[in-house]
């Protein structure tokens, strides 16, 4: 009896599934893939989104980490998946950097994607040991007076932080020595120990030391002053007019997503981003929660690819 019941089960499911699928997306679990280690910023943002989207969509959203080669392993994987909306990717600012930095990628950074929405945007801050430089102008002046005297520690070759430092050199004409560390925390330790003179990193890396008076925050890389630190001047208003670097997290999916699926996912993302809890969690990670249209996200990425390509060319950074 039981065996008979079980035997008919696949048939029953087969009959039931298409009926639902025709009028409702989604009818099974979805995935958010990202290219970084568990517990990192990308992973945490993915989990925050996945948890809320599961409830809104009525199907579980699973987070999958496929780390490697600065996130490009995951991108190559997602770009090859079916554009059915069940596979999404959490993209970060490094996506635009990778497009400029790698000689050959197993995917097209723009054309292989249906972009959905940004999630959070955040700038980088420039910090020096407290009392060493009165202002960002003083630091640039010192760098111009004695080329190569100022050492910038960054979180790895080809990181957005590194390229931002190179861009600062190009825009101001100052010559810096750029030294790579294994991650922002190691660069911060080097600043504290006196080995480097300046670091450029996110608020989460810098704020703890700044609050304790160990660091002076000299400037922010966004075009406008950042809401949570209104006293910090921008590079744009001080030493490098037009300087505008922000990084971001966003959601995308393989190119060719059906319009109704794209609309359903975008609407769900905007709903989640409007939630107070989610806004607080994203803000705790040092970002401003900001949604966007897919077209706005695509424009942002295309603009940044152009900027980083120029920086990499001019600074003669080795392409991979």
């Amino acid at each position, binding site marked *: 009896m039981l065996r008979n019941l079980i035997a008919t089960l696949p048939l029953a499911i087969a009959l039931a599934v298409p009926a639902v699928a025709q009028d409702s997306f989604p009818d099974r679990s979805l995935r958010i893939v990202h290219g970084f280690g568990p*517990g990192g910023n990308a992973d945490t943002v993915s989990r925050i989104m996945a948890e809320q989207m599961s409830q809104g969509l009525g199907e579980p959203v699973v987070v999958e980490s*496929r*780390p*490697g080669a600065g996130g490009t392993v995951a991108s190559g994987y997602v770009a090859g998946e079916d554009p059915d909306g069940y596979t999404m990717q959490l993209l970060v600012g490094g996506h635009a950097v990778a497009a400029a930095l790698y000689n050959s990628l197993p995917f097209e950074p723009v054309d292989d994607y249906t972009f959905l929405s940004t999630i959070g945007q955040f700038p980088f801050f420039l910090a020096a040991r407290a009392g060493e430089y009165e202002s960002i102008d003083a630091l640039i002046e010192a760098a111009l007076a004695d080329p190569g005297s100022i050492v910038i520690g960054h979180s790895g070759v080809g990181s957005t932080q590194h390229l931002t430092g190179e861009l600062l050199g190009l825009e101001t004409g100052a010559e810096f020595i750029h030294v790579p560390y*294994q991650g922002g925390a190691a660069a911060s330790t080097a600043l504290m120990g006196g*080995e480097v003179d300046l670091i450029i990193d996110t608020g989460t890396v810098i704020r*703890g030391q700044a609050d*304790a008076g*160990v660091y002076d925050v000299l400037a922010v890389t966004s075009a406008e002053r950042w809401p949570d630190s209104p006293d910090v001047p921008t590079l744009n208003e001080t030493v490098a007019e037009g300087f505008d670097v922000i990084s971001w997290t966003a959601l995308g999916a393989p190119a060719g997503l059906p319009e109704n699926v794209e609309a359903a996912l975008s609407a769900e993302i905007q709903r989640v981003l409007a939630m107070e809890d989610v806004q607080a969690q994203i803000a705790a*990670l040092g970002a401003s929660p900001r949604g966007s249209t897919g077209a706005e996200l695509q424009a942002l990425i295309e603009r940044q690819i152009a900027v980083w390509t120029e920086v990499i060319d001019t600074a003669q950074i080795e392409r991979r």
Partner: protein
Amino acid sequence: MIDQFLMGLSVVMQPEILIYAFAGVFIGQLIGVLPGIGAITAISLLLPVTFYLDATTSMIMLAGIYYGSQYGGSIASILLNLPGTPSSVVTCLEGYPIARDGRAGMALFVAAFSSFVGGMIGVAILVLAAIPMTSIALRFGAPEYAMLVVLGLLAASLVGTGSQLRSFAMVLVGIALGLVGADATTGYYRFVAMPELADGISLVSLAMGLFGVSEIIRNASNRTRTMTNISVTMRDIIPTRTEARSLLGPILRGSTIGSFFGALPGTGAAIASFMAYATEKRVSRTPEKFGTGHLPGLSAPESANNAASQTGFIPTLTLGIPGDAVMALIIGALILNGIIPGPRLMVDQPLLFWGVIASFFVGNVILLLINIPLIRLWVLLLRIPYQKLYPVIIVMICVGVYSHRTSVTDVVLTLAFGIIGYLMKSYRFEPAPVLLGFVLGPLLEDNFRRTMLIYRGDFAIFIERPISAVLFACTVALIGFSIFSTIKTYRRNVQTRGAHER
């Protein structure tokens, strides 16, 4: 300090927090036993839980997983030759031969007790000297790290039973393997045969393959079905009085070495445990016994890696600087709770700061209490016949390796390293120095090239900076001592031969 510590203790003693402390160390212990699945996987899975806990409780639980897994790591190393972390590689060297000898229970007891003492000394240093240790750690810049690693590499070639020349050759092989991946200074790809290797060979693959899988292959080709004469009576588990007395020195030396290295962000437990091992071998009157199941060689590195995993919290708590990837995760949990870790943590959140430190004290006691009764159970695992036990272990290794980077390539590489490890053992080349070279090589390269960048290629910097100069002098002295003793032995041999001829 003591007052604040007692205040922290009163925080931990609240039943609710105590339960989470217990849960943390218990999960950590279990995770540590599973081959290949480290604290990092466990903590990232539990991170969402901390959304619903307050900052102190989350920190106490996550930290418990971290140092609990250090305890657990030694169990798989001793019983099955499976090092979960680089710090337990040296535990395999002595612990596994003891287990094969039928005295696994005693090895586990000595490991647990050494770990306990090491952990407690680490906590004591954390309470009494966190601030001075922090300022010492900050004086370690690129030149100091480079010199420290040179010293470490030299110590690495002392690890191993056979000839030092063979060990040294294996260190070089390890360094070569460490070159695979993106060059940290220029970003240029070296030996990246496939995109999965862009971030280098996985340490877990290498360790699991060279140690665990190769050992399984070797046993499979033997006729024996299980380990013989396994004893689980209490009398056989506890070491004799003479044995216990011989462990006092190694435990104290190991704890001191571990406490120091733990406080340096980025080097931590891995260097600590085999520096302790190499030191023991140097000071021992019977260095030839190392590698054959010598208790001091087991207890020194065990105390060292547990002391290091406690003092590893010094930079994390006093500066908000994570010493390794696991610490970064723990700090992430703090950030999600709205606390920005930094130098003000101790002042702004004294209950959290001292509560976490006091929880280490309590956690170590809990670990010792749950470990001793479990020893019997672990040892009984070895009564399972090989043909049933090993397939399960192979599957667990594959799952563990896969879970690190979701990479099938890593799993295939693990099995390949297993075969290579088997061949190496057949020709008496040891795997431990390979692993040490693999861990230390990239550290040396990064810090050396960083030094050259910052000081514009000035080699004199290594002897101009005081700490670096001292480390350099130690290295030279160690090389000098080795050459001197080699010549002395050679002369003696020549003289005795000469006497015979006359």
